[in-house]
């Protein structure tokens, strides 16, 4: 349909403005440092970091859901719970709990497919409530099974033989691996063809449909991936606690955490939830002694961010063109950069 005008001669498209090493090397360095932590720091520190990694995974996946696909779920605890119980059941069958982590993620993705057919019929607030109801229903179903410990839960078998220090370190590495894989997966997804389409959905869903983006398909894919991530987080959670409590794993508090972290850090970017998880985690530790006050302060911070700083802390930094994980495209003209023209007219005034 478009006339070949030969415009493309000499133009090159780059994925990064700077060298890819600028992202890859520091990231690899941070991961290597984190992987070394159990050799030098005590168990208390690694256990704390495990909680942080769980939070990071949940926030990253929730951000993909709410920040990109526009699916504001408050029911991801459904998959934390299913992931946790999947590990329990597999361990009861003799599977090593660590090996059960990826299986738990797969189980959650499989379970989330039929659930998506149900909840995707709902819009906006109804979708949010619907996902919560699904989580509650899952909890009610699971406690029917005596073999799973009913309402009180059950201990996780299969890890009794391990030395406590080794177990702590292995749990730490498992949590770190899940966090790194989740971030890497989210990064690769956002850099892909589907990721560009998802970013368009983030910015304007109606316009995305009008340029041919198959929005329901993209949303379903994100929903499945986010369920897998939450399932892996739930699996790690069981291994840290060595038991499953239905009231904990299916608790709506997890959704509250995800919302807090993403609102504070910034919705719709990869960096935002990482920053948010760090800030949230520090706040949580600092305020832990003040009991209920900590929830009130966190809630107030989240409300302030939601109302006044729409794109969170990362949104403030982004104004200075900082990017840790570049996902965009950069067009280079034959003679170097294409010119950045001045604005052709004042910013748009609202019409009609």
């Amino acid at each position, binding site marked *: 349909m*478009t006339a070949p005008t030969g415009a*493309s001669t000499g133009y090159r498209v780059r994925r990064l403005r700077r060298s890819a090493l600028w992202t890859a090397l520091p990231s690899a360095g941070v991961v290597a440092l984190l992987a070394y932590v159990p050799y030098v720091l005590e168990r208390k520190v690694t256990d704390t970091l495990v909680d942080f990694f769980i939070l990071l995974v949940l926030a990253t996946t929730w951000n993909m859901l709410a920040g990109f696909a526009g699916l504001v779920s408050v029911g991801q605890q459904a998959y934390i719970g299913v992931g946790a119980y999947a590990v329990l059941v597999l361990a009861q069958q003799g599977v090593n709990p660590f090996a059960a982590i990826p299986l738990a993620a797969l189980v959650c993705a499989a379970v989330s497919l039929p659930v998506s057919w149900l909840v995707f019929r709902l819009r906006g607030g109804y979708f949010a409530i619907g996902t919560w109801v699904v989580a509650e229903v899952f909890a009610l179903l699971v406690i029917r099974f005596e073999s799973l410990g009913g309402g009180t839960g059950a201990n996780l078998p299969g890890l009794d033989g391990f030395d406590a220090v080794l177990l702590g370190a292995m749990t730490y590495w498992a949590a770190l691996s899940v966090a790194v894989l989740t971030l890497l997966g989210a990064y690769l997804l956002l850099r892909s063809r589907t990721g560009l389409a998802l970013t*368009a959905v983030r910015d*304007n869903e109606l316009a995305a449909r*009008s340029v041919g983006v*198959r929005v329901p398909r993209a949303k379903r894919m994100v929903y499945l991936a986010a369920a897998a991530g939450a399932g892996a987080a739930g699996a790690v959670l069981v291994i840290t606690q060595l038991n499953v409590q239905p009231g904990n794993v299916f608790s709506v508090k997890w959704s509250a955490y995800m919302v807090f972290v993403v609102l504070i850090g910034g919705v719709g970017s990869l960096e935002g939830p990482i920053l948010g998880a760090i800030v949230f985690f520090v706040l949580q530790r600092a305020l832990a002694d003040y009991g209920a006050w900590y929830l009130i302060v966190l809630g107030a911070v989240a409300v302030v961010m939601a109302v006044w700083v729409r794109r969170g802390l990362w949104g403030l930094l982004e104004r200075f063109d900082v990017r840790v994980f570049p996902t965009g*495209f950069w067009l280079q003209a034959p003679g170097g950069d*294409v010119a950045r023209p001045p604005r052709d007219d004042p*910013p*748009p005034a609202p019409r009609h």
Partner: protein
Amino acid sequence: MPVPILLELDRVSKRFGQVVIADDLSLTLEAGSTLGVVGPNGAGKSTLFGMVSGDVAPGSGEVRFAGRSLHRVDAAARCRLGIGRTYQVPRPFVGMTVFENTLVAAQQGGRLHRQAATDRVLDVLSETGLLASANTPAGRLGLLARKRLEVARALATGPKLLLLDEVAGGLTEPEVVELVGIIRAVNARGVAVVWIEHVVRALLSTVDRLICLAGGAVIGDGRPEDVLALPQVRQIYLGSAGSGPGGPEL
């Protein structure tokens, strides 16, 4: 040899509460042709586009494209069939650059991959004069560039039918001339164009056929000069707002 019918509205009706958008409205458009649409504010012109592009479901009646019913075909699938549209109030992907805005259209609507998608984007951006802004985030564009981006994005999907909703509003005379040139070039490649515009002089230099929409009906259809001379068309403009915002800017 008769020119095939590209778009067909068959007895379409639509109302929002008391507001009648279309009342048993029928319309056909030949492949590769041009059609201008005028009508008073709130006549339902943009909503008519919505019913063609899949954003709005008709109350009754049928829309057909290239002989195929669009009933239950969603907006993305319609785009992939060859219906490209712009929005009256631009809807850029604000967090993405101009290049990325156009690329996603070429990849998704145009179903192009890799270099083919890039080539399409470069062609479209140079044609619409946006090449120099390729790396600018769309959120930083002014209104005029946003309107160009609407056109570029629709073109990148490789449409057989291009729906333009008031893309000339607010443009200066030289800019209108440039835009008219772009649209005529697109049409010369065989893309059918339907253009809603209050700036009638832009329409007159582009379209072969004009319809006037009012009260849910087509009250004039034919050569642009003839339609504008019709008493009922003059009546609506003179009666509603003279040459004010509702009337044609002649």
